[in-house]
Each structure stands twice: as structure tokens, then as C-alpha cells.
């Protein structure tokens, strides 16, 4: 035990962390530790509380109870500045860079007092040296961060966290927008840091990356520690079942057999912000999955098809109707429905009632509203609420008081039995519990049986594999691959999503690719 960094004494100890938002407990008693020079993975499904724990460590969120110590000293909770001073740096999942600041400003401004002078020139020189020392010379320190690509922003964010030579680096899904060479760049930096005695907490749900980099890991489920693992002592299946809290095979309904070849939606060479020409055909009664990493055009595709973002195409038909340009109002009239990304801001009016939220697309300005309308539509509302088993006290309850899963059902339910021909889904099962997921799967399959074409973007690969007839994977705003029948596997989706060619199957292979993809 002559080692100066005694491994017996952990660098970070988190004891019994609890964080509740009102009645909702996001984290309910999480205990773990991290040794010096170690990479600790924090894994779990969406909504398991990983990000909340990471934010508590970084000081961005104050724990309701529990304690955190770094190198024996208690960490001042709820102050990012204090955390930074104790050598804890975090690269956040939602990027914490200021879009109107330049790269140099984002790198240098967080350090130092507000009343100090600030020299653009010096900060640019410093930022340039920093970016070069991290092998990122292609990023211009004078460019405003808002003009950079998502991946570059993430690289800057990581570089900023690394810049202070932290003793503890927290990477909260920091690789979500990175390409395989970007990920190997990140791993090189992590190894440099741990070789120098720093520790890393790696929050992720990408098992391939965890297999490569993590020394130990803690699995979170529903805000609790579900288990721990050490390097080499686990398999994907074990970890998945630990994360999910049941055997690895989860129940997914199969897509219904298709009864017709009619086309519900077809578009060729669709162009919009973030889309570089997309050809797509969606049949009636077909469930077409959209795969890919975040920021490769999935959100833009759905928004463009619904008319929420300007887009042009060479040819564009919905049903038998030709479309040149569309707006959300026209899209609804043409028989489209859309479940947007963020149910709280885009999907619902939280201060309005459940019934009014369901009816939202069907109000005309001259029609009745309020209670008279609700009682007239009572049959349809009760049908939707029943079919999706929405847990609510009735159509007059405020939408904001429902749980996330039930809110999501409302956003989805407003399109049911309204003679839709196409429904666009933006990751409808994100952050909702297993039961609500099952109910949504059932509803989606039912709609497909009725002949509705479903375009379904999901970040959960398993959903795409099991519930979809066909999956299209986007990469850099283009269709990278189309997967059907025996080629429709999780490995192929992941491979195509990171820009590897369609046939690269092994799970870890894309991560080791050195070749620039695309």
C-alpha cells in the first residue's frame, strides 16, 4: 500500500441519494462509490434516474436527501461552481453550451470572476491550444456554438469538461451524437484521464461502449440500484434483464398481417433543414419504423411530413392526394396525425382538461367548446380513454396532473377512430413505464389492423425489430439502409445507425471502425 492514491479509499461516495419532484420520486435511495483511476458505468433504461444522479453529482440538482463525498470531503450540493472547484466536471446529455457564445467563450467563460476583463483574442488562442491538445483542430474557436453540428457541439462540451483536468469526470450520455471515430476519440481521452489518476462516471445505455470502457458498473432501475457488475463478468442478456427487471425477452406484439398493397404516403427526394433528400413509401396498414442515432434527421423527417417545418419534395402524395407544400392544418385535413417529441410542450396544453386535449385537433373556431362539447363527444372520449386504459378521474381532470405515460396516451389517443390514414410517431414510448408501453404497442397494432399507415421513429431498437414490418435507418439526413424480414435485426439497425454498411453485424464492430463512415 505505498500507492499514493490508496485504492482502498474511494474517490467518490454517494450514499442514499433521494430526489423527488413533488410526489414523483425520480431517485429513491441510490448508493454507490467510485475508486480513483476507475471508469464506473451508470446504466439503466430511460427514466431509471441516471441523469438525475449525474446532475446531483455535478451540482446542477440538489438532492432531497442523502450525501455525496469527494475524496472524503462532503460535496456542497446544488452548486455547480462548488462541484467544479472540487474537481468534478460534467458533460451533460442536454448540451449545456450557450448557443450564442463562440466556442472560445464557452470554453473559457465558466472560469473566473464576472468582473474580470475578457479578451476575445486571448480566449481564442487559449481555446485553439486546448482543442489542438485534444486533437480537435477542425473546430473553429471563433464560431458560435449554435452554428456547429450536434456532434461537434458534443465534442466541445466534452473538451470543456476535460479542460480543468478533473479528478472526477461525469459523462452523461456524452456519446449520444458521436460517430464511431468520435467515440474512440472519447475513449482515448478517458484512458488518458484515468492513467493520470482521474475517475470517470460513464452514464450510458449503450452496452457495447460499456463493455469496452467500464471497469465496474452500477445498474439503476426505477430510481433504485438494481445491481452491480465488474468488467468481463456480465453478458448483454444479464445486463438487459437487470435493467428491465425481468427476463430479457420482453413482450412485443407482432405486426398484423398486411391485407392491402395500397400506399398511404409516398415521398421522393424530400428536402428540408437536416434532410438531404429522402425517399419513403408507407403502405396502408403498415408499421414502418425509423431508426438512427439522435440528430440524424428523424425528428426533422416527421416534422417535415407533418408540415411543422418547411420542406419540398419532387413528388409527395398522401393517400391519392398530391401535396406540394403542407402545413399542420392541411396535414390534419389530409388525414395525418402526429405525436410530437415532447408531450409536455408540443403535445399537450397542460392547463386544459383531458377531454379538451383529446379534442384539440378537432375544434373549429365556430364550434361549441368547453363542457357542452365534452358531453356531446362523451362517447368518443370514453372510448379512447378506455381503449388506452388512461388512468384519469375523467375528462375534466387537468392533463398536467396525469403521469407521463398517461399524458403520452392522450397525445396518441386524439388520433384514434378519427379516420386517419397516416400517423407519425416521435418516440412515443420514451420515458414511460412498461405497462403504458404495452398498452401503446397494442393501440399501434390495432390502428395498423384498421389500415392506418404508421411511421414510427423510436430510439428503442427492440421496438423497431419486433413491432415493425419494415425499418428505415437514417444517417446524416439520408436513408442509410432499409431492413426487412431476416435482415431486420437489432445489430443491423445499430450498424446502419452509426454509418457502418448494412451487413456489419457484430455489436461491437461498428465501435471499433476507424474508417470515416458515410
Amino acid at each position: 500500500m505505498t500507492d499514493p492514491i490508496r485504492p482502498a479509499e474511494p474517490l467518490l461516495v454517494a450514499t442514499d441519494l433521494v430526489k423527488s419532484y413533488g410526489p414523483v420520486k425520480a431517485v429513491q435511495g441510490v448508493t454507490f462509490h467510485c475508486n480513483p483511476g476507475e471508469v464506473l458505468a451508470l446504466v439503466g433504461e430511460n427514466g431509471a434516474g441516471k441523469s438525475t444522479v449525474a446532475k446531483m453529482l455535478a451540482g446542477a440538482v440538489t438532492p432531497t436527501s442523502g450525501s455525496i463525498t469527494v475524496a472524503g470531503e462532503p460535496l456542497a450540493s446544488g452548486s455547480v461552481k462548488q462541484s467544479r472547484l472540487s474537481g468534478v466536471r460534467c458533460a451533460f446529455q442536454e448540451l449545456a453550451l450557450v448557443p450564442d457564445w463562440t466556442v472560445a467563450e464557452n470554453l473559457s467563460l465558466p472560469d473566473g470572476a464576472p468582473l474580470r476583463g475578457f479578451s476575445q483574442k486571448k480566449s481564442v488562442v487559449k481555446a485553439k491550444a486546448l482543442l489542438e491538445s485534444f486533437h480537435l483542430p477542425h473546430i473553429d474557436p471563433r464560431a458560435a456554438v449554435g452554428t456547429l453540428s450536434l456532434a461537434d457541439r458534443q465534442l466541445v462540451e466534452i473538451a470543456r469538461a476535460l479542460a480543468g483536468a478533473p479528478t472526477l469526470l461525469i459523462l452523461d450520455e456524452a456519446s449520444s451524437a458521436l460517430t464511431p471515430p468520435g467515440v474512440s476519440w472519447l475513449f482515448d481521452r478517458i484512458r488518458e484521464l484515468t492513467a493520470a489518476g482521474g475517475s470517470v462516471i460513464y452514464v450510458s445505455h449503450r452496452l457495447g461502449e460499456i463493455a469496452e470502457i467500464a471497469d465496474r458498473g452500477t445498474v439503476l432501475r426505477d430510481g433504485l440500484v438494481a445491481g452491480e457488475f465488474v468488467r468481463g463478468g456480465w453478458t448483454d442478456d444479464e445486463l438487459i434483464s437487470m435493467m428491465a427487471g425481468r427476463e430479457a425477452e420482453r413482450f412485443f406484439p407482432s405486426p398484423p398481417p398486411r391485407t392491402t398493397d395500397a400506399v398511404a404516403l409516398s415521398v421522393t427526394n424530400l428536402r428540408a433543414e437536416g434532410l438531404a433528400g429522402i425517399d419513403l413509401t408507407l403502405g396502408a396498414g403498415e408499421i414502418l419504423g425509423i431508426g438512427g442515432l439522435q440528430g440524424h434527421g428523424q425528428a426533422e423527417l416527421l416534422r417535415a411530413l407533418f408540415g411543422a417545418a418547411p420542406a419540398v419534395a419532387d413528388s409527395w402524395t398522401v393517400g391519392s392526394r398530391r401535396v406540394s407544400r403542407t402545413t399542420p392544418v392541411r396535414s390534419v385535413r389530409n388525414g395525418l396525425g402526429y405525436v410530437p417529441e415532447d408531450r409536455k410542450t408540443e403535445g399537450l396544453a397542460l392547463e386544459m382538461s383531458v377531454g379538451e386535449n383529446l379534442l384539440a385537433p378537432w375544434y373549429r373556431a365556430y364550434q361549441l367548446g368547453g363542457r357542452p362539447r365534452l358531453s356531446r363527444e362523451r362517447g368518443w372520449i370514453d372510448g379512447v380513454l378506455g381503449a388506452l386504459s388512461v388512468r384519469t378521474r375523467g375528462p375534466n381532470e387537468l392533463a398536467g396532473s396525469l403521469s407521463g405515460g398517461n399524458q403520452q396516451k392522450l397525445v396518441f389517443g386524439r388520433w384514434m377512430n378519427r379516420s386517419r390514414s397516416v400517423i407519425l410517431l416521435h418516440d412515443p414510448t420514451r420515458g414511460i413505464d412498461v405497462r403504458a408501453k404495452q398498452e401503446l404497442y397494442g393501440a399501434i397494432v390495432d390502428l395498423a389492423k384498421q389500415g392506418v399507415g404508421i411511421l414510427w421513429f423510436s430510439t428503442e431498437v427492440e421496438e423497431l425489430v419486433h413491432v415493425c414490418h419494415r425499418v428505415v435507418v437514417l444517417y446524416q439526413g439520408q436513408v442509410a439502409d432499409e431492413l426487412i424480414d431476416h435482415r431486420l435485426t437489432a445489430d443491423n439497425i445499430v450498424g446502419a445507425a452509426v454509418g457502418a454498411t448494412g451487413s456489419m453485424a457484430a455489436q461491437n464492430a461498428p465501435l471499433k471502425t476507424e474508417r470515416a463512415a458515410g
Partner: protein
Amino acid sequence: MSAITPTSTSTGLPARVWNGTGVVRLRREGAIAPIGAFVVFFVVYVIINPELLTRFQLQTAANLVVPLALVALGQLIIVLVGGIDISIGAIMSLCNVVFAVQLETMPVPVAVLLAIGTGLACGLFNGFLVAYGGLPAIAVTLASAFIFGSLAREVLDRPGGGITTEIYLATSGELLPFVPVSLVWLAVVAVLLWLLLQRTALGRHIYGVGSNMESVRAAGLNARLTKLLAFGLAGVITSLGAMMLAASTVTGDPRSGDPYLLSSIAAVALAGAAFTGGRGSIIGTILAACTLGLIGNLLFFAGVNSYWQYVISALIIVAVVGIPVVWRKAAFFAKGARS
């Protein structure tokens, strides 16, 4: 290492060259359109009324636009942190009468400091409620507008005060032939403010807080303090405008600030600043204020009824703010059709 970028930037090199110049920053801050608008306006003005370039008219015009420009800069700072100041006219009235009344008894520097202190106190009052109370800026400043307005009438209930000719000459006379003093003061304030906003960390924090408050907090910076200081700074700049107005009219008036509320917001809008915060430029705001401030004069010389002043101001704002938006849309569809 370019392999790390997923998007191959063929336009990367020219962008890099541009990033080194100030033009990119001006464009991001929305200043190009108001600068262009001012140049056009100025040329039209000189064609219709070449007399502007005489000593007397230059001095009068400067005295007319400088208070507005200063108040607009105050409003700009509030808008930069994502707020809006409805009380700015009332703060101006209050500082104006405090300055005029104190001059009756106190030496000039004391009166100046008291007026600045009044502006600072008003700004900090608003800022504290907004930054630390978490109240919306529009509600806080609307309420405080009534308070400050009443206080101004309490201090001086009718136009008056002790402003002397010396003070008029020091603020609104001529420094040299063809160089009005008021423009010199405006330039001094603008340069100092530019140094503060662009060359200190606090200034960059002000832009950052308006751009994305959560990001600034996540970076470990004190976003609330930044907001508070921004409101205080705006109060100080507003008090400078109030003193310039009092001195150039040689009187203190408890209603003098009222018309500056809407004009200051109009100037900031014309300057291309984002009302959600984070974007806006000093030079754009000053030139926008000059444009708006001189429209009345221009119409007088053109022989148009002065009531049209507001319609013309409105058209200029809509045109200058609207052209970039239309331009972007047209460019998108042109690009889409070509590729």
C-alpha cells in the same frame, strides 16, 4: 482528425475566414439591417433637407436623438437578458426630476451622482424581483412603472428645476464647430458599454443568460446575479439619458420619460435584437434610435402631416425586421428548388 466530424463541411474554409471578422458577430446580433436602414434613411434625409448638415440643425437633431439612444441602450440590456422594461419611461422621468431638483441646491457632481444612483436603485429594484423573486419582467416593471411615475410627480409636480445655461452648454452645445457635445457623450457611453458587454466576462454572461439561462447555470455561473446586474446597469444608462433630456430642454419634467417607453422598445426591435434574449448590438440600437428619432423631423421638412410619423415609423420597423425573415424563407425555397 476530420474523421470525427460527421458532416463534411465543404463550406468550412470560407466560414473560418469570416469568423475572424466582426461582420459575423454583427450579423448574428441582427445589426446589419438597422445599419443599412440608417444609411438609406440618412441619405434620403439629406436629399430632402440638406440643411441638416448646418451647425444649428446638426446640434438640434443630436439633442433630439441622444436621450432616445441612451434609453434604448438601457432597454437593450434588459432585452439581452430576456426581459423587457415597461418602467423605463418612469425611471427616466424620476431621474430627470431628481437631477433638476437637486441642481437647485446641490453642486452639479452631487446632482449627477444622485440621478445615477436613482436610476441604479430603480434598476436593482426591478432586477431583484425578476432575478431572485422569479417574477416575470413584464409584470414587475409594469407595476414599478406606476411606483416610479408617482415618485417622480412627488419630487416635482410641474415642470421646473434648477438647470442652468452652463449645464445646457456642457451637454447639448457644441464641442467644436459641427461636433455637438451630446454626440460626444453618446459616443463615450457607447464605447464604455461596448467594452463592458464585449470585453468583460460580465458582459458575455449577460448575452449568455439571455441565450440560454439553463446552460449558463449548468456551467457553474451565477445567472441570477448577472440578471440583477444587467437591470442595475440598464437603470444607470437610463439615468444618463434622463439627464441629457433634462439638460437639453433646460427643465425637469415628471412626464418627460413617458414617450420614451414605446420608442425605446421600438428602437430595440428595429435594431434586430431578439426579444427572447441573447442577441442585440449596441451600434444597431443607436442607429435605430437615430432613425426613429429623426423621422418626425424628416416629415416636417418633407411637408407631410406629423401624424404620419407613427405610420412611417411602423412601416420602417416592419420592413427592417421583416426583410431578413422573408429573405431567409425565399433563400430556403430557392436552394430547395435548385438542388
